[in-house]
């Protein structure tokens, strides 16, 4: 019997189309993955806290101010940064460089500068005020600069530095905040929808103990030292006569200097900052509460405020929407209408229903192998049919 070309050709055709569909499936997968691990936050906030006062704790103020500078440089505006400094080093009578705070003995950058905005200063930096800021339970007359006005689409960076111990952080030599209180504060924030994702960085002694009690979702934590270890200072500035910056923050800043506003550096690289041979203490991390993989979480999700700008060349005319209620002409009828409108929280949890609402029929995409198997089966069927027909 002669070799029948037609079934072979048919087979080849089937294989090539299944390969094409296979390729098409990978592209879809990529698209899909971007939706999963790309962040969906819309605004960035930062809460930077230095909890220690007195001249010999100069380095803690320098730490907080350095992170403040980096975060501002990467795009977060002052209105979205809460800076809490427990003491005024720049105007301390012992400061040989009045009005300036340096984080390096080469005194290259004045991290205090003329445009610093300290929101909580001196004795206002207390554990109570810190928790009130986080949870939003401030008195009605608190100014906007002292409020953390975040919503459920805000990514927050919380950086804390000072003297700490096992399970506590010392505030101002007189009080302390425990890791349980901090975890509860973050849970309050979660339940009140005050953050989308939160990055918690802490540079104190025995820092890991502060984040080990966290239980709210979407929190990532970095600590500069393990329990039982001390976080050490980096170097002395002999012109000023103090230890000027801590090791972990020094290396964090070195890393952040390489980060520019649009960079694609990921958290995985941030976690490699200051290994034990540089820091002497061993940094610790917590990612089990975080939903996205760290290799796909960008630094700029927390440290910067990346604002995508779409330039379009089409125009549209804005038409008044007849459904919008004009508040100036509020009548009794329309008042009732607005009172009857039901409010609801937007979806935070990535559940089955919610993804089907937003992202399309993702799970209906067939597995690529199914395509190959079915096409092979189909061509076998056709081949046998044709054989029976021909014979």
């Amino acid at each position, binding site marked *: 019997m002669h070799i029948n070309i037609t079934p072979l050709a048919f087979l080849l055709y089937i294989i090539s189309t299944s390969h094409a569909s296979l390729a098409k499936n990978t592209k879809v997968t990529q698209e899909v993955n971007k939706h999963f691990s790309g962040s969906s936050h819309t605004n960035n906030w930062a809460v930077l806290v230095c909890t220690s006062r007195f001249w010999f704790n100069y380095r803690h103020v320098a730490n907080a101010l350095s992170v403040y500078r980096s975060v501002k440089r990467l795009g977060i505006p002052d209105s979205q940064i809460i800076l809490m400094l427990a003491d005024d080093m720049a105007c301390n009578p012992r400061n040989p460089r009045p009005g300036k705070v340096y984080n390096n003995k080469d005194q290259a950058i004045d991290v205090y500068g003329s445009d610093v905005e300290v929101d909580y200063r001196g004795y206002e930096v207390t554990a109570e005020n810190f928790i009130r800021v986080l949870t939003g339970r401030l008195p009605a007359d608190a100014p906007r600069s002292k409020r953390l006005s975040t919503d459920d689409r805000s990514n927050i960076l919380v950086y804390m530095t000072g003297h700490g111990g096992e399970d506590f952080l010392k505030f101002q030599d007189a009080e302390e905040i425990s890791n349980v209180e901090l975890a509860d504060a973050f849970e309050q924030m979660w339940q009140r929808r005050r953050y989308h994702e939160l990055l918690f960085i802490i540079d104190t002694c025995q820092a890991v103990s502060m984040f080990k009690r966290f239980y709210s979702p979407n929190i990532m934590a970095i600590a500069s030292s393990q329990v039982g270890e001390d976080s050490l200072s980096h170097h002395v500035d*002999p012109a000023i*006569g103090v230890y000027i910056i801590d090791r972990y923050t020094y290396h964090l800043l070195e890393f952040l200097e390489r980060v520019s506003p649009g960079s694609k550096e990921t958290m995985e690289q941030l976690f490699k900052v200051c290994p034990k041979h540089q820091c002497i203490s061993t940094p610790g991390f917590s990612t089990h509460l975080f939903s996205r993989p760290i290799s796909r979480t960008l630094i700029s999700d927390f440290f910067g405020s990346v604002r995508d700008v779409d330039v379009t060349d089409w125009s549209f005319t804005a038409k008044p929407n007849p459904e919008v209620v004009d508040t100036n002409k509020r009548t009794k009828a329309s008042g009732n209408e607005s009172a009857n409108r039901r409010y609801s929280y937007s979806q935070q949890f990535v559940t089955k229903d919610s993804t089907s609402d937003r992202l399309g029929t993702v799970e209906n995409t067939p597995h690529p192998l199914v395509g190959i198997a079915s096409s092979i089966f189909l061509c076998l069927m056709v081949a046998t049919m044709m054989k029976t027909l021909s014979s």
Partner: protein
Amino acid sequence: MSGLKKLLPRVNKICILLYFGGIVGFLLLSHEGIRENCYFSENALLPGLVDSKFSASDDQIHNINLDILDPNSEVTDELEKFMLRGGLEVYRQKFTFQEKFVGNARIQNGTNIYGIVRAPRSASTECIVINIPILNNKHNFAMGIVLALAKEMRKQFYWAKDVIFLFSEHGSFGARAWLNAYHGIVSYPVSANQLPARAGSIQSAFTVHMEEDAVSFINLLVEGYNGQLPNLDLFNVAVRLIKIHGMAVSVNYEFVPRQSSAMDDIKSHLGATLKMMKKQVTGTSSGNHGEFIRHGIEAITLQTVYNPQWGNAGFVRLGRVIEGISRSLNNLLERFHQSFFFYILPSTDNYISIGMYMPPLGLMLAAAAIKALSLILEANYVNSEETDKNEETKKDSETKESVEDIDDILKDMDSDYANKENDNKNSEAPPLQQILITMVTSHMMGFLVFYAPVFTETWSQMFNCPQDISITLLLVTVHIAGMFIITSYRLTLEGGKSLYVVSLLHQGILFGVVAIINFSLGMFLAVCYVLPTILLQPGYMKFNLLRKFVAFLVSPLSIAALICLYTCNGNPATVMSEFVNFHVTVYEQSQTQQSWLFDFIALLLYPLWLQFWAITSSEGEILT
């Protein structure tokens, strides 16, 4: 209880063991494994972290010193001129004082001059004081350094506290006059005018004492009055700064490097320890800083020493040390309170804290307490035995039918009239009464000794001798008179034993309390007194002469004589003058410097010793 009873005969051995155990324990504290390294407790100090900005040269300082030494002008005028040129606020204070009380007791005058560098950016609520004493017949070369430093300090704006440069005359009298006026206190025999200006509460101070125009190393003086010491952190700051600037530092002129052989190491450290204790025993301060410590201001004296063989470190280095200490003190937020206030220094890098040196003393005083306790227990056992015996004899007398001697009958009836051996008029007095009478008498004798020096002048006129010899004679006479007066009241055996117990406890408490305030004095007294007094138990008449000799050996008089013998190495001519000198110095120090050694010896130690002396003359034999 029977175990205790078995121990009672061995109580003397136990006490001697405890005594020597305490001494050995104290000596071992200087051992490498036991002594501790000095460390900083105050985080705010940040010693030596900042670079020095002292930029005057050796020549400039030398010229300033030459200007001050100019014979045509007064030292105070020159100082005023330099300080005004440097831009400081300059003020003067006049004061009067009486230096000698025995001999030509005249009132002298003095002037203090001080300049203030005000803190440019803070309120003048706190200050530090740098004291440069104006020496009587020499020149304090630190003046040049400090004046150059003051001029530079005035230009800087990182001083958070005011800095006062105090140039005081006449040693501790000038410092005391200034401090008293600063704090609004009057203390005899110094009287001072009110200060024209102040600068807030003094946080810390240090004195610089430079007698020659070159310096090889710096000796630190820490002892204050009556056993007070500055905070150990201040000492650590001074040591650290001196080492950073490359100079050698000693304490009590002892350099005590760690040595390879353990024996040499412990010997050298022990030598330094004992030297420091020797200085503290008399309760006088080794420098002006003692006056500051009296007011609760931590202070220390830096004394420079020059040895041509060792070379000259130069003025500038010393200036940097002074500046460094000032900057470290500038960083302080509170007064020194973190580190130790009670310590002994075996070297500049080690310390022995109160927690380490009190237990050996406790062991020695425990020896005295255990001896007293053993006597009480013994008395209890003897009493219970006697009552048993009396009951037995009573039973016997009831069963006996024969006629007995009147004496025997009376003895059985336990009558007082039967005791013909103790034909003492005081045999009726209960032990408590004997104790009270003896103690009151001994303390009255103490008062006599305390007030005796008031009669020095009349005594010297009566016997036509200089006043210092007369005061010595007076004290010796009253001492011996007291000995005779107290023995005129004879104690019974019971009274003697009870007084012995009370005196042992009295001794333990007294020395313990003194040791808390001035440990060196307490330790010295314990070493001298505990062992002999354990051996002074009454009731062993055949050793009476020996006991009296031992008791006399530890009398304040003989201890003074022995000390003079030791310092003079047995040369008889100098011993007498040394003896006289000793008494005069001790008395004068109590008057001029308010050291309480003389008061303590007269009012507390001498009466205690008199009680022991009375016990040695008590009669009665313990029937074994």
